């Protein structure tokens, strides 16, 4: 242990950034749960990227010549997750569904995060009437249950994956505004912000180069947790028929389709549901783990252990 400590303290003075990553890795290694979350999330992303190319069967096309033969088969070696009522391989469909969920969650986040960041930054930094206006609008959004609001938006926009993404983006940004604003309120009072101002650094530069990077840490945890929530919400929208439309292999949609045959043909709903469960769980435990890594108290403990 002593040898290890020496190595770590050496690397710290020489290359601080590598030390940070090493420490993070060390924390992840120490917590099997976080490791599991990381593996699930990475697996999900990889499958989302390459899933549609490695499916053993075509996940969308219906081979009408085989429908009668393959219809609703239980899991077997040939079809690990069984088949649906059109004889399509469910394993292939679930695999292809990873991409849909990945795209939806990425799209929602890539709209919600920048909007939340910019509005939170402006509200927190300028304060006063600007803050008041932004936060009251945010409050209006937050006063409705997110999913209900998303259903309302997506129903208005018309059923479809695109409108589901849009609806989820609309309901997702307000929570980020709150988190970012709260953090900015803390950071802008720091002396180094005043010092930067006293050196004539422009307001925009102070906002984006000093306040923003110092404020995003709590957002990182929230975003990780929210990735799971977005997947869940988009599945929920699809489940009630508002999100992805057939034949798109969306997990929530698959669960809804399988419901007709439940519980006799349990695999139809079970496996897509399991995919949702595992993915969301993976993001959640990774988020928890990240919070631990970013929590200085937890890290202090770890560094202390290293000395022993």
């Amino acid at each position, binding site marked *: 242990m002593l040898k290890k400590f020496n190595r770590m303290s050496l690397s710290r003075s020489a290359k601080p950034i590598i030390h940070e990553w090493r420490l993070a890795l060390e924390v992840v290694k120490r917590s099997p749960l976080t490791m599991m979350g990381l593996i699930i999330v990475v697996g999900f992303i990889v499958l989302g990227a390459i899933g549609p190319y490695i499916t053993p069967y075509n996940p969308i096309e219906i081979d009408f010549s085989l429908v009668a033969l393959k219809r609703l088969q239980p899991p077997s070696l040939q079809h690990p997750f069984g088949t649906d009522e059109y004889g399509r391989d469910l394993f292939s469909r679930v695999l292809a569904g990873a991409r849909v969920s990945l795209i939806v969650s990425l799209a929602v986040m890539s709209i919600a995060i920048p909007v939340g960041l910019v509005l939170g930054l402006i509200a927190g930094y300028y304060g006063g009437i600007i803050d008041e206006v932004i936060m009251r609008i945010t409050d209006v959004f937050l006063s409705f249950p997110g999913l209900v609001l998303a259903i309302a938006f997506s129903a208005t926009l018309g059923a479809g994956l695109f409108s589901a993404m849009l609806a989820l983006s609309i309901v997702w940004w307000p929570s980020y505004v709150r988190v970012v604003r709260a953090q900015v309120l803390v950071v802008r009072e720091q*002396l*180094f912000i005043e010092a*930067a101002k*006293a050196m*004539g650094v422009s307001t925009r530069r102070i906002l984006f180069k000093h306040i923003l990077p110092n404020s995003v840490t709590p957002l990182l945890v929230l975003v990780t947790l929210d990735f799971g929530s977005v997947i869940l919400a988009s599945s929920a929208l699809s489940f009630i028929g508002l999100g992805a439309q057939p034949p798109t292999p969306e997990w929530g949609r698959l669960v809804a389709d399988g419901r007709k045959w439940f519980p006799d043909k349990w695999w139809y709903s079970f496996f897509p549901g399991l995919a949702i469960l595992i993915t969301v769980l993976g993001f959640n435990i990774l988020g928890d783990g990240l919070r631990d890594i970013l929590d200085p108290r937890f890290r202090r403990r770890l560094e202390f252990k290293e000395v022993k």
Partner: protein
Amino acid sequence: MHSSNLLEVKDLRVYFYTYAGVVKAVDGVSFSVRRGEILCVVGETGCGKSVMSRAITRMVKPPGKIVSGEVLFNGIDLLKLPEKELKKIRGREISYIYQDPGSVLDPLYTAGFHVAETVLTHSSSMKFSEAWEKAIRIFREVLIPDPEAKAKSYPHELSGGMKQRVVIATAIANTPKLVIADEPTTALDVTVQAQVMELIKSLRDKYSSSVMLITHNLGVVAEVCDRVVVMYAGKIVEAAFIEELFTNPLHPYTQGLLEAVPNPLRKIERLRSIHGSVPNMIDLPKGCRFNPRCPYAFKLCNEEPVLMEYSKDHLVSCWLYRR
């Protein structure tokens, strides 16, 4: 436009509008900083020194407000200058050194970055690599050992004294005409204090810029200052050259301050302290603000004294010296 005064502050008033009432943190302060001199501002905690220094470049945060006054820098009134023009002065003509070097540096950036950023802010045509090289040159000037490596260090990897040197490097990056140092040595231990003061003094000699040094440490004052301004409860009570002040302190408050400093040459049983405490800034005593604590207080002290000339370059605000 070449008067001997670089900075002239006239009747500056900074009030804080709080729920408890109006705090007159700086109430009618007038003084000047001459070219190339080190001016010390001395006073107790909470007497308005820091607020006054921030007001010079309009850095007072709400609920604080600059109510009135003039801050003439090279003849230009900074309080009337548009924000855009003022930004060009901050960090280039007037720069600050703060009390706590630990929190002045952004923890996410390297030491060199801070200096380079200040350089780039005021010369947009410069490339980052050039600014970085300049930062290393300045690091060498402020006697940071191994400047190349230290420039790449993050603030948490540097010691307090080293951080303060980085802050000083940032302050002098654009060779400003006026450096405002707000208790630059308070957070440092004694040996480092001396080094930092020595550094500030040598930089003044080199660039012939003026330094406004805010401190409550009279030892520091005696060490480096040319002229001293004594503040009490938001007002200036005495201003004089250093030798004059130490040999002939006029205001009872200044006398009290000097008696509270241990002097190895004079053997005394115990150090004197000034009775009472700093007045409540919301509910100030009537007349002279030092009145309740003053051993010489008499009837006239219920009226407010003005700063008057006792002899050339020696100003005092006390009824004892009325003519």
